[in-house]
């Protein structure tokens, strides 16, 4: 198991190296993109461009520039934004991370609990009207675009119904750090959590239902029943446990992507200044240092979460364990 974990970590380093190189090359080799021009603003003179190139080291050979950037990103951590002069990128991301993590962790908790409930309920209620009903509701959840849902939620909780007893507790948009006021943090995030999790509840609920129904026909479930253990135990320990394998691998992918900046739309709608929001702005400004830093951050989380998922997967399914 230890070698498995070490191998994963080495793999992570390699993946991150490749990703940074690719982002770097894309940035410098895309036709029509000149970082100096992006930094200089409108109609810069040739002299100004020259100066900027010298100041930001853009006149050095590419490998050297890459090494410089990696050095200031990982070693000295003083990488400076191109567009917001003087702003250091690493602390900026560090400051944005808690907001994103709060948003995604909370939503993930809701969607895991709710989708298991939906999936199990639909599978158990198969043959009644509730199963197709639940599945249709799930489908609606999947189909509703998250930015639209968010806007509607805002319209109701911040606008039309904000002054009624129903939603007067909802604080203004934005992220309130947990360390300052946990209760406010919770109240401010509950609507974004629900908005973000709805898609995943629908999706995971449907996947889990299908998996449970498939597993219920497995011979080993029949064996479990023949053993004389309770139906509840057959469901939880045999059917559900085995059905969770697909669920967990999907969860890893989605969770990693969301932490890495995939919650962008929800962050924008609810004015939560997280990593997705930061990436979005940096892309608009062609701000390479920020893009690079968010990409590294994102890649790190995706690879990390995937490693965790692989370990969880090996725990769930002994057949894939390395021997």
């Amino acid at each position: 198991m230890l070698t498995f974990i070490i191998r994963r970590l080495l793999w992570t380093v390699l993946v991150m190296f490749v990703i940074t190189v690719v982002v770097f090359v894309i940035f410098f080799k895309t036709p029509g993109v000149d970082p100096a021009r992006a930094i200089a603003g409108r109609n810069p003179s040739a002299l100004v461009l020259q100066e900027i190139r010298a100041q930001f080291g853009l006149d050095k050979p590419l490998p050297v520039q890459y090494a410089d950037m990696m050095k200031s990103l990982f070693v000295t951590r003083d990488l400076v934004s191109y567009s917001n002069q003087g702003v250091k990128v690493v602390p900026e991301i560090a400051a944005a991370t808690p907001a994103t993590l709060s948003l995604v962790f909370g939503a993930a908790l809701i969607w895991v609990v709710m989708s298991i409930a939906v999936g199990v309920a639909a599978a158990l209620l198969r043959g009644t009207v509730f199963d197709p009903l639940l599945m249709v509701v799930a489908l609606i959840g999947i189909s509703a675009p998250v930015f639209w849902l968010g806007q509607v939620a805002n319209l109701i909780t911040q606008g039309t119904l904000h002054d009624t007893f129903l939603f007067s507790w909802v604080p203004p948009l934005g992220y309130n750090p947990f360390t300052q006021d946990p209760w406010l943090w919770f109240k401010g995030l509950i609507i974004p959590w629900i908005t973000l999790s709805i898609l995943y509840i629908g999706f995971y609920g449907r996947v889990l239902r299908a998996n449970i129904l498939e597993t219920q026909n497995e011979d080993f479930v029949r064996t479990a029943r023949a053993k004389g253990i309770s139906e509840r135990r057959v469901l939880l320990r045999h059917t559900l446990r085995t059905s969770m394998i697909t669920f967990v691998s999907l969860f890893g992918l989605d969770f990693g992507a969301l932490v890495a900046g995939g919650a962008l739309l929800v962050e924008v709608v609810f004015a939560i200044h997280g990593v997705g929001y930061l990436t979005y702005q940096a892309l608009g400004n062609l701000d390479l240092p920020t893009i690079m830093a968010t990409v590294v951050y994102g890649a790190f989380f995706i690879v990390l979460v995937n490693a965790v998922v692989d370990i969880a997967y090996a725990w769930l399914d002994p057949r894939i364990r390395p021997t």
Partner: protein
Amino acid sequence: MTGEPLLEVRDLKVSFRTEDGLVQAVDGVSLSLSQGETLGIVGESGSGKSVTMMSVMRLISDPNARFEGEVLYKGRDLMTLKAEQIREIRGTGIAMIFQDPMTSLNPVYRVGWQITEQIRAHENVSKQAARARAIELLAAVGIPQAAERVDNYPHEFSGGMRQRVMIAMAVSCNPDILIADEPTTALDVTIQAQILSLLRKLKDEFGTAVVLITHDMGVVADMADRIAVMYAGRIVEQGSRREVFYDAQHPYTWGLLGSIARLDRPKPRRLATIPGQPPSLLRLPEGCAFGDRCAHRFELCDERPPLLNRVDGNHLDACHLEPKQKKELRETTIHPELIETAE
């Protein structure tokens, strides 16, 4: 036959609603099983032998299934028991092993865990005690180094070893009845013999009654005290092993017997086969279900289905032919050199 039957199935009917109509999988099966007895149920795929025994354990959870009849176990009708009551009988009263050991064990749990789960579901014993018993059981079914193997996962065992694990699990709570649903079908021939001798050994040791479901006449010849031959959801012949093998009454049984390759007799030029296919269970013929494939069919066979009649003693048979005719026809159906008439 020793005393009261342990298990008695009375006129069991199982049907499934499907898109094409009602499938009558089991059509009025009656069986009985005494303490320590081995009953072989023989028939081809789809003849209803597995469905019959699965119904006995109430393991068919298909909402489209309908059951009729009685299944008396120690005088209680299993068909009317509540889920909680049937749960108590499963594993302790009646246990079952299945055809495919590759898929019958849960792949994500250690085999020891799976055995102790059953023990602890029925008996109030500590984890350690249950585990010790699991190791004992694994050793008893011939798994070497049972104390280490108890912590292995199913995929770390071969097919034969997995079937041994299944057997260890099935006998873990000393059931009165062990239902073995084609326990050797998915195994290599060499392993088959080992598993059968293991079943025989356990049966002798614990006095467990065994219901052996199979399509292999060789297996029942080896194991069974009594044999029931099933065809299209009905029992067509039932009797002691001796009666069924040496005084077979039903043309279908003749066909099955004729299709055994035997090494202790002159080699026939060709192994006999039964022509055609079993009828669709959706639309059973009005007369005898075997009629279409029977070489000795006559008018009566098309008019009404034959009843299960007593030949003598406990030997039952469902064929319209007269006993005298049967004796003559049997000679021509089963290869003459294969048949030994009952003395």
